[in-house]
């Protein structure tokens, strides 16, 4: 996402790589982490002066949100700082040494909307949630969607801002379907049951499922598995990715160690508990249009087809579904 202060001279001109910064990068000054924010901004300011957008990799010039590598001058990557405010006390996973060797983790994911969708350039990234990835893929060029209070026409009390997800254990084999995510699950443009069906007994993935360990493992990275979630499946169901690439089509599902549900922060800053049994619509409905499938289709405007959970995930659905 684009964050004020991380662009060239205060304009919206792109510095290569900044578009991958997560919403949390923008929150830093507001969670008493201004010193971390200042480090990031100082490098971005320098890069802005010397790095015109020519596609070159500027990951050594600005702090890399996708890894732990230090800056070119040897300064520790500020995205490796462990920020306790970004962690839920009930999640003991993903504790990393605070020594710069790994990216810092987070439990708090911004809501991408009511459907499984990719973050890739060229794909329709105009997702319906508050947590919009950096660029519209609808041919409008570099128009950047702005999200502000005025865009939340459903009402800030009826729209989810942030939900919690358990952080993945670093070793894939140690993850269950709440902490890990299944990869090579063909979720693009199909029924949401494609992802739900990897659920097996005892909290485990179905035998033979390939998995990844991406969830929440970089508070810096704006790509969905790290700091985003989708209200496609109800809380504490599996998360999935279409292939082995973390920025491609994913369904990141809210999860927690709280019994029977997850906490979400609404756009009015209140925190509500959402039950695992929240109405999520019919997961067996085919929602995409691949292969000429016909079906009700995922709705890009108007009321969400994803039940109450889907309605809460969309700021402009013209629906004011509220939690019971």
């Amino acid at each position: 996402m684009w964050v004020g202060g991380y662009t060239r001279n205060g304009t919206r001109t792109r510095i290569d790589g900044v578009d991958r910064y997560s919403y949390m990068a923008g929150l830093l000054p507001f969670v008493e982490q201004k010193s971390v924010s200042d480090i990031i901004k100082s490098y971005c300011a320098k890069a802005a002066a010397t790095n015109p957008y020519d596609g070159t990799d500027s990951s050594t010039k600005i702090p890399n949100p996708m890894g732990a590598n230090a800056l070119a001058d040897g300064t520790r990557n500020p995205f490796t700082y462990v920020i306790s405010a970004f962690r839920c006390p009930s999640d003991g996973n993903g504790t990393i040494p605070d020594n710069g060797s790994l990216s810092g983790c987070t439990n708090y994911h911004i809501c991408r909307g009511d459907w499984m969708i990719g973050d890739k350039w060229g794909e329709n990234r105009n997702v319906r949630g508050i947590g919009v990835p950096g660029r519209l893929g609808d041919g409008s060029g570099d128009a950047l969607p702005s999200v502000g209070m005025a865009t939340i026409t459903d009402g800030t009390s009826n729209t989810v801002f942030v939900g919690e997800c358990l952080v993945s254990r670093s070793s894939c084999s140690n993850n269950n379907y709440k902490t890990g995510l299944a990869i090579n699950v063909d979720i693009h443009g199909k029924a949401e049951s494609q992802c739900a069906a990897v659920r097996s007994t005892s909290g485990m993935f179905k035998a033979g499922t390939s998995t990844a360990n991406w969830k929440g493992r970089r508070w810096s990275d704006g790509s969905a598995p790290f700091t985003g979630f989708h209200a496609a499946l109800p809380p504490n169901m599996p998360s999935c990715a279409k292939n082995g690439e973390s920025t491609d089509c994913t369904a990141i599902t809210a999860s927690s160690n709280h019994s029977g549900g997850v906490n979400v922060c609404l756009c009015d800053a209140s925190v509500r508990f959402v039950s695992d049994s929240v109405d999520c619509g019919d997961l067996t409905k085919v929602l995409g249009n691949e292969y000429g499938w016909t079906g009700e289709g995922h709705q890009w405007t108007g009321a969400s087809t994803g039940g109450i959970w889907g309605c809460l995930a969309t700021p402009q659905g013209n629906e004011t579904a509220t939690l019971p």
Partner: protein
Amino acid sequence: MDRVTFLINPVDHKMTKTIFGMCVLCVVLFAIGCGNNKLKTEEVIGTIKFDGKPLPNATVNFTTAEGSTGVPGFGKTDENGVYKLQALQGEADAGTVPGKYLVSVIATEMVPTGKKITTYDEVGNVIKMDETKSKTLIPVRYSDVQKSELTATVEAGGGVFDFNLTK
């Protein structure tokens, strides 16, 4: 005219009310304490075959037919083409509730497009992977409950529902 009289023969009227109240409270507390709010389901399993051969890694969807009081179920076939259905609010692999269902099957595989994509590993090193895209393995009509011509009626006790798909 007959009269039905309920005989409550308390020794002490006030005591009975208290005991009754405590019994109700105990039952309520027990019910809350159980914590298992999962939907009661009937086991539904089966084998999916395509062109006579077991179809692995396919998703089976039971969509509630109009007018039925079923609950949608879904399952994924294993390497032998065997699926165990589950409902969202039920336990994993535990089936779904009785009802009439329209059935669809989605079976696809990811195939390389020939292009490479760039991504990053855990510490930020650039790595390249094959780009893949989805390819359907069975006729598209099976993915649409209105066209698949597959149905299932689940009754009390559940059952085995096999589906043999053709080209």
